[in-house]
């Protein structure tokens, strides 16, 4: 079973259920893979091998005792470091939380454990999820499994790299402006940002509370749906959690595989999210995908969302404003590091300021200062107030578009994976990576990214973004599974089967991370 790591979670589920493999075997295979290649990929900040094997043995024992278990029981999963885990450090990629082990599990982590999934460890991310490349992780960047010189996307580059390099079949991510979807696009994997409030945020270290949403990171649409079914649903510990009853996302994904599932589906192409500004190979694969959809009976309709043009501007006011408030909790008193100032009296205020200077990286400082500015007296109406109005306009654009079409599509990101360092000097250039994904966060609607090919000019993955009306997450899965099947039939293989084999001995020799490995 050397190929066990290549199997989807759905396939592993079948093999675990019929007893062909044990969870201990599956877990060990993934731990071996991590040990073999993660020095090069650096997807993980912490690997919890012993605890994973113990949890796997417990699932095997329960199964052997005849207990009825959920479909993903015994399947390993990687957890983004933004999520609180009671038995593993949870740093959100920041020095200020180095070594912090929370006294509780995030609700999604608890649900994953209750469903019998096996947490393997914590994945790397841009500090407090601020970034599109993992270059802002305090623990060194994650490398794209397709090309170690390139970014894996961000902030959830660790989770996306873990699934696309076969270190884990499933991972959890969080998406505030694209942190699940953009990494999925540039690594050739699948990522879903659920409807705002569809998945609990309790225990997710807050970046921007009105935008953050936790979701699945996987290699197939069906796997994402299976994981969504585990983590979704109302949580009384999150006051923004929706009380709606949700349909089975897995059933929706399976319905998308039926013949003719795309017939008559009205697919909206957002005029403002195509054309200029997109890399040629991205635009080409998008156009080809639309042609495939049309040939399968979908109706392609161009729709306009004129206010999307203002989405990035609104986002980079709302996000820093909320983040500057959320990150005030890092005060050197209740958790995290404490750093005393050099000289002068040791007052709480001075210790807090010295701690935050030492503990926060450059992007976090930049956004806290920007957010503090946007919320200042005299600027509040012009900046934060106006940004909230743009949010209304963007919701109206979505409402108008969804009155004409069933789903909206666009490329998930304007380019394929860029090289390390390419956008570090210019914050605005980095922010523009999120142009396609931000509107969904501002409006709260669900979005998915799935692979739609390799760009001819660089051979790197290109992602298709699908958006559905709020609370219609199931439609993402039925449509997404149909598109995935259509694309794979046209290629004759999965996209990730084209990724370079990462030899166990392969090391990233230019990397600077040595002792920075792990936040332990």
């Amino acid at each position: 079973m050397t190929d066990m790591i290549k199997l989807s979670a759905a396939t592993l589920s079948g093999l675990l259920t019929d007893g062909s493999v044990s969870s201990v075997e599956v877990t060990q295979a993934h731990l071996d893979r991590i040990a073999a290649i993660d020095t090069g990929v650096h997807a993980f900040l912490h690997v919890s091998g012993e605890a994973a094997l113990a949890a796997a043995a417990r699932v095997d024992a329960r199964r052997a005792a005849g207990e009825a278990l959920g479909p993903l029981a015994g399947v390993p999963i990687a957890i983004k470091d933004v999520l609180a885990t009671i038995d593993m450090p949870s740093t959100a990629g920041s020095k200020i939380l180095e070594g912090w082990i929370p006294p509780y599990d995030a609700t999604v982590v608890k649900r994953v454990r209750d469903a019998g999934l096996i947490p393997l460890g914590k994945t790397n991310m841009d500090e407090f999820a601020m970034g599109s490349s993992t270059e802002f992780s305090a623990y060194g960047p994650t490398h794209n499994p397709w090309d170690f010189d390139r970014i894996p996307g961000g902030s959830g580059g660790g989770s996306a790299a873990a699934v696309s390099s076969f270190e884990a079949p499933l991972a959890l991510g969080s998406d505030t402006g694209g942190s699940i979807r953009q990494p999925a696009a540039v690594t050739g994997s699948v990522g879903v940002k659920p409807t705002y409030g569809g998945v609990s945020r309790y225990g997710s270290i807050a970046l921007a509370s009105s935008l953050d949403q936790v979701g699945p990171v996987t290699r197939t649409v069906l796997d994402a749906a299976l994981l969504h079914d585990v983590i979704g649903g109302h949580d009384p510990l999150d006051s923004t959690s929706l009380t709606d009853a949700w349909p089975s996302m897995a059933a929706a994904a399976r319905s998308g595989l039926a013949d003719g599932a795309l017939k008559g589906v009205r697919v909206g192409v957002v005029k403002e999210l195509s054309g200029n500004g997109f890399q040629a190979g991205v635009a080409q694969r998008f156009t080809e995908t639309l042609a495939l959809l049309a040939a399968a009976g979908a109706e392609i309709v161009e729709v306009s969302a004129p206010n999307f043009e203002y989405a990035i501007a609104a986002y980079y006011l709302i996000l820093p404003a909320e983040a500057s408030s959320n990150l005030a909790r890092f005060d050197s008193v209740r958790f995290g590091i404490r750093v005393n100032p050099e000289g002068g009296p040791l007052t709480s205020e001075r210790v807090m300021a010295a701690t935050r200077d030492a503990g926060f990286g450059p992007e976090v400082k930049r956004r806290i200062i920007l957010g503090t500015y946007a919320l200042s007296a005299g600027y509040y109406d012009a900046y934060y107030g106006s940004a909230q109005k743009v949010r209304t306009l963007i919701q109206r654009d979505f409402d108008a578009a969804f009155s004409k079409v069933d789903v909206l599509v666009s490329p998930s990101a304007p380019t394929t994976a860029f090289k390390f360092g390419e956008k570090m000097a210019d914050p605005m250039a980095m922010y523009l990576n999120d142009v396609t994904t931000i509107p969904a966060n501002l409006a709260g609607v669900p979005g998915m990214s799935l692979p739609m090919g390799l760009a001819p000019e660089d051979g790197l993955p290109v992602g298709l973004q699908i958006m559905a009306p709020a609370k219609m997450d199931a439609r993402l899965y039925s449509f997404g599974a149909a598109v995935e099947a259509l694309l794979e039939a046209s290629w004759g293989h999965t996209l990730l089967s084209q990724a370079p084999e990462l030899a166990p001995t392969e090391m990233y020799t230019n990397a600077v991370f040595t002792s920075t490995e792990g936040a332990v």
Partner: protein
Amino acid sequence: MSEITAEQVAHLANLARIDLSSEEISRLTLELGQIVDSVAKVAEVATPDVPATSHPMPLTNVFRADTVVPSLTVEQALSGAPDRDGDKFRVPAILDEE
């Protein structure tokens, strides 16, 4: 259009309780000016007739029953503290001597 000054950034850093170096302040002054210039375009469409949206899926009055439920123990609550004194968080002096 924005005229962000180093004094302003130093003041913001003080409000945000981050002890920035003078190099960080000068770099942030430049960057903040550029970012603010780019994001100021929100004002172009934010006319008075448009209501503000603070939350994508607005919910109101989310309450739970007023009953005691299990919560963190004192040990758990203190487990991540950089310093403690018995059952309390230990902090530096709140007020300066002067």
